[in-house]
């Protein structure tokens, strides 16, 4: 199983986690990651997330598929928002389910590294004193080499 959603509306990460967990049979471990809009020194008014609609879903499916080939996962969920977000909003979540915990942990970590640098999203921070695109970091690129 595998669920991929790209949406501009908010979602309830807790409800998604419960739905995901209840759908499993045979899984002993569920790991989730939620990414949250951090306020930048109190100056963030909102965050704008642009994406490449024709490519996004296929890219996320490919990343999820890569994870499924590397670890014994019974399920993968990816939800990613785009559009207008406010500080403390949940930007995205991933969840992984597996029989044993090591697979679920490694896969969630892997998904995040690849989502960060290989899924076509771009973040722009609108601060009190102007707007700027968030830069990718060398660290993000280096993280991919772990896998």
């Amino acid at each position, binding site marked *: 199983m595998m669920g991929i959603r790209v949406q501009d509306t908010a979602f309830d990460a807790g409800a998604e986690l419960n739905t995901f967990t209840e759908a499993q049979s045979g899984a002993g471990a569920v790991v989730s990651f939620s990414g949250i809009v951090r306020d930048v020194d109190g100056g963030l008014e909102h965050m704008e997330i642009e994406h*490449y609609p024709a490519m996004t879903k296929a890219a996320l499916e490919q990343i999820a598929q890569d994870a499924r080939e590397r670890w014994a996962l019974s399920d993968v969920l990816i939800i990613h928002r785009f559009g207008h977000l406010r500080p403390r909003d949940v*930007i995205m979540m991933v969840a992984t389910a597996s029989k044993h915990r090591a697979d679920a942990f490694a896969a969630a970590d892997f998904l995040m590294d690849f989502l*960060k*640098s*290989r899924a*076509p999203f*771009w973040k722009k921070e609108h601060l009190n004193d102007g707007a700027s*695109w968030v*830069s990718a970091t060398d660290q993000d690129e280096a993280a991919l080499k772990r896998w």
Partner: protein
Amino acid sequence: MIDVLYFAWVRERIGLPKEQIETQAKTVAELVSELVEREERYAVAFSDLSSLRCAVDQELVEFDAPITAAREVAFFPPMTGG
């Protein structure tokens, strides 16, 4: 005719999200060279290719990728998802 898409600050510098281009370019890099010669705003947007990424028909590729059979080429900065 090929669809060329721009995202994030590439879109802002070029001033539009998408355009149709008549080109004989055989690779992404050749397309970039053509665009750079067209107008200053392209030269600015493409001044440092190491800070850009590209996709051909929605697949991430290197700048030497062929585009002779492509319908869509996209240019954008390194992605910042998650």
